[in-house]
């Protein structure tokens, strides 16, 4: 037992005061729950924005160079002319969509919102180890978001070099045409990185030192394990990106030549630095989704998670292997060919832990007593969509096949099956699951089901045809596909995809509507609406300041559901198993 400090840290002695005022309550707070909610609302706003950018991209691909309905008039002159998107503007939209979604939506939702909200509550702590650092990390995130969006309004406009910002295109103003926009991108990434590093340091310290008595590492819920491993990945990977962003800034503004061949620099250096961050990043954005979905699957199957330790070891393996596969983004970049072969093999290996996890999820629902709540539906769909995204990854992992599909829409399909079908579906599931705890109200289940089914249908309609587009030879990031002879016949697929994307956009309004009406009139949530075992369900919904009136004591793991010989089918971690009941070792 490494730690017993579960008391809230004594930063401020106002735990018992009610009248802290609007600013201290909502804007500058040291309470991890409120910081989690700050992240949640901000990132959902960014999700809305990033989705809008995606719709503009999709519109241009389906009906190139025609006036965009409604949104067209609001676009700046660098992006559109007479309401129709111009090629340079298209590059900006693609770049900003991806940057927003990766750094300002998926990471903040999984790590900032759920990480902050759940870590202290699920390990039985009163707050994070460093509450001030925690609030600082939120505001750094917020500021970096503003800086990024400001790029749309500077001379030259937003960067149009892709979220990967390959040098020397990104490093030389003469090539990219927007020194200021690209510099702001670099600054935003750098500050966003500081936020991630601060948050991750906090999470690691909290998980290691502040677990409640009895909460051994192998009694932690998989959500906590996934966030813990993710935090370690962040601390190791993000500084490399921050360094690269700083070097890019120097190349652009201070006359250095890190990446410019004319001054002796190396274009491939940028790619190595970027992907050394970028591949762990892929797992940073999926591990917490896996952890939360695992917990939701167990709760609504009323079963212990199948192979708990195998799940933990698989995540550790993913974390480790995630650092030695970055070169698979660079098979055909001009990197040494033997190196490509080596990265090809390590990439094949990283598919194994993902396969293990999938089989264990299936083992979890096997012989369960499955209740199809909206949260469960999203988590179940997460598994299926993740399987598609994982399987399509095998194509690119095979070095010769990558010669054909590299940089085509096949890759775009793959990342969206993992990032949307995986991470975002899981995030929706987690919102439906933890909303009652966060706000003391249940979300509407009927609207939730409508939201779920429409999301699933439109998602597949939007992204499945991209596999065919990619194999048909459609390159990424081209503003006007039909100008290529071989892409003309594929245009109907582009239109199907865009209609799916528009449907997906409108479906979001159902979700927003559900949140609004449920916050106002939703059914009052009891402490433990789902009969779940983890610690957050033993306290009030929403939990008070300091979380636990009394430091909880943990007696067993988080997955003791349907224990034979017991009346009820769950056994909270704070409850001792009755004398006559024997818990299975795992």
């Amino acid at each position: 037992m490494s730690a017993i400090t579960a008391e809230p840290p004594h930063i401020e002695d106002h735990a018992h005061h009610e009248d802290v005022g609007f600013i201290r309550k909502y804007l500058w707070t040291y309470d991890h729950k409120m910081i989690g909610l700050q992240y949640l609302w901000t990132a959902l706003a960014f999700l809305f924005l990033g989705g809008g950018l995606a719709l503009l991209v999709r519109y241009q691909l389906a009906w190139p160079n025609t006036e965009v309905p409604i949104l067209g008039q609001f676009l700046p002159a660098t992006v559109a002319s007479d309401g129709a998107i111009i090629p340079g503007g298209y590059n900006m939209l693609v770049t900003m969509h991806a940057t927003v979604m990766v750094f300002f939506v998926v990471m903040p939702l999984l790590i900032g919102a759920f990480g902050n909200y759940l870590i202290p509550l699920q390990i039985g702590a009163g707050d994070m180890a460093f509450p001030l650092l925690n609030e600082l990390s939120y505001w750094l995130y917020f500021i970096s978001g503003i800086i990024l969006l400001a790029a749309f309004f500077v001379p030259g406009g937003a960067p149009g070099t892709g979220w990967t910002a390959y040098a020397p295109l990104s490093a030389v103003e003469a090539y990219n045409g927007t020194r200021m926009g690209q510099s702001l991108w670099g600054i935003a990434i750098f500050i966003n990185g500081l936020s991630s590093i601060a948050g991750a340091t906090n999470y690691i310290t909290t998980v290691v030192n502040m677990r409640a008595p009895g909460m051994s590492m192998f009694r932690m819920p998989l959500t906590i394990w996934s966030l813990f491993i993710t935090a370690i990945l962040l601390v190791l990977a993000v500084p490399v990106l921050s360094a690269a962003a700083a070097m890019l800034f120097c190349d652009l503004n201070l006359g250095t030549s890190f990446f410019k061949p004319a001054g002796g620099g190396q274009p491939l250096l940028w790619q190595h630095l970027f992907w050394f961050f970028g591949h762990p990043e892929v797992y940073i954005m999926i591990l917490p989704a896996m952890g939360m979905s695992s917990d939701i699957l167990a709760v609504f199957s009323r079963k212990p998670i199948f192979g708990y330790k195998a799940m933990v070891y698989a995540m550790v393996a993913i974390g480790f292997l995630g650092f030695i596969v970055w070169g698979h983004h660079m098979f055909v970049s001009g990197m040494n060919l033997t190196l490509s072969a080596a990265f090809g093999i390590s990439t094949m290996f990283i598919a194994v832990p993902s396969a293990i996890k999938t089989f264990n999820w299936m083992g979890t629902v096997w012989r369960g007593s499955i209740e199809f709540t909206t949260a469960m539906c999203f988590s179940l769909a997460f598994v299926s969509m993740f399987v598609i995204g994982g399987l399509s990854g095998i194509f690119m992992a095979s070095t010769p096949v990558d010669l054909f599909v590299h940089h085509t829409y096949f890759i775009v399909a793959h990342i969206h099956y993992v990032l949307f079908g995986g991470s975002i579906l899981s995030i929706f599931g987690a919102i439906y699951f933890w909303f009652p705890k966060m706000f003391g109200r249940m979300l509407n289940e009927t609207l939730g089901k409508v939201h779920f089914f429409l999301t699933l249908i439109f998602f597949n309609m939007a992204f499945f045809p991209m596999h065919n587009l990619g194999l048909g030879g459609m390159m990424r990031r081209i503003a006007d596909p039909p100008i290529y002879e071989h892409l003309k016949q594929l245009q109907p697929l582009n239109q199907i995809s865009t209609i799916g994307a528009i449907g997906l956009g409108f479906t979001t309004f159902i979700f927003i509507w559900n949140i609004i009406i449920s916050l106002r009139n939703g059914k009052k949530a009891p402490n433990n609406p789902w009969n779940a075992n983890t610690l957050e369900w033993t306290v009030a919904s929403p939990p008070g300041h300091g979380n636990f009136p009394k430091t909880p004591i943990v007696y067993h793991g988080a997955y003791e559901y349907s224990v034979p010989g017991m009346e009820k089918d769950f056994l909270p971690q704070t409850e001792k198993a009755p004398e006559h009941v024997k818990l299975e070792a795992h």
Partner: protein
Amino acid sequence: MKFLLLIFTVIAAGLVPAEANSLYWAPPNVTVGGRQIDGILNFIFWLTVIVFFLTQIVYVYYLIKYRRKPGVKAHYSHGNNFLEIIWTTIPVAIFLGLGIYSNRVWADLHRTPPPDAIQVNIFSYQYGWEMRYGGADNQLGRTDIAQISTASKFGVPAEDLAGKDDFTSTELVIPYGKPVHVLLNSRDVIHSFYVPSFRLYQDAVPGRTISWVWFEVERAGNFELACSQLCGIGHYNMKAPIRVVSPEEYAVWYAGKVKAAAEAAQVEVPANNPSEKVAKNGPAT
């Protein structure tokens, strides 16, 4: 929820017989190496389709069979180590085998080009392509990266005699049935040589010459060379025609270009490259 996927997969798979020699709406492959790539692609396709349907059928069956019923309690089990070992070992074996086989093909595709391969130097720039051929002596002048400038677009040193008779073309003309070895360069940012029908992609990196790309086309046809690496505002339209012709036709075309180059060289002594148009260095504004 799987129906949509089913429909799409059937559409994709159903097109294989519909358009012979073409894979899931992919443009027909025309190179020797592309056959090997399509072979692996096909194998992975069927592997993933089978794995997908097997797992999803079992999964959906479980979801239906084990839905909540009154009075039925879930089975209490924390897992099974034997199963864990099984479903770890089998994927390891499959993926390792696939990885090793892939790398053998990868090595084969990148073996040293045959000595009789036709060499073409492809220069990319924002936003276009220039192809340089060996000229009368069939020898390309060697590109010295440091000497690339507006005056010397290909960076061939003046003292390099092999470069004197080189000629350039805005279209890539190659014969079928012969190995073609391309040397890739870029004058500004990273571009890429991408021809889906050739099953071929390779980045052209400024400051370097990429020298390991070669292929052999099997039949005549017209194709498009596309840049597939985001390279700036004009990226979407950075393409060049590729004409694959019979060896005889190629010889005629080649002789014509050599003759034209020689005539142009006599007009403007001392001869530099008979440029067809001035290269744009830097972005078009």
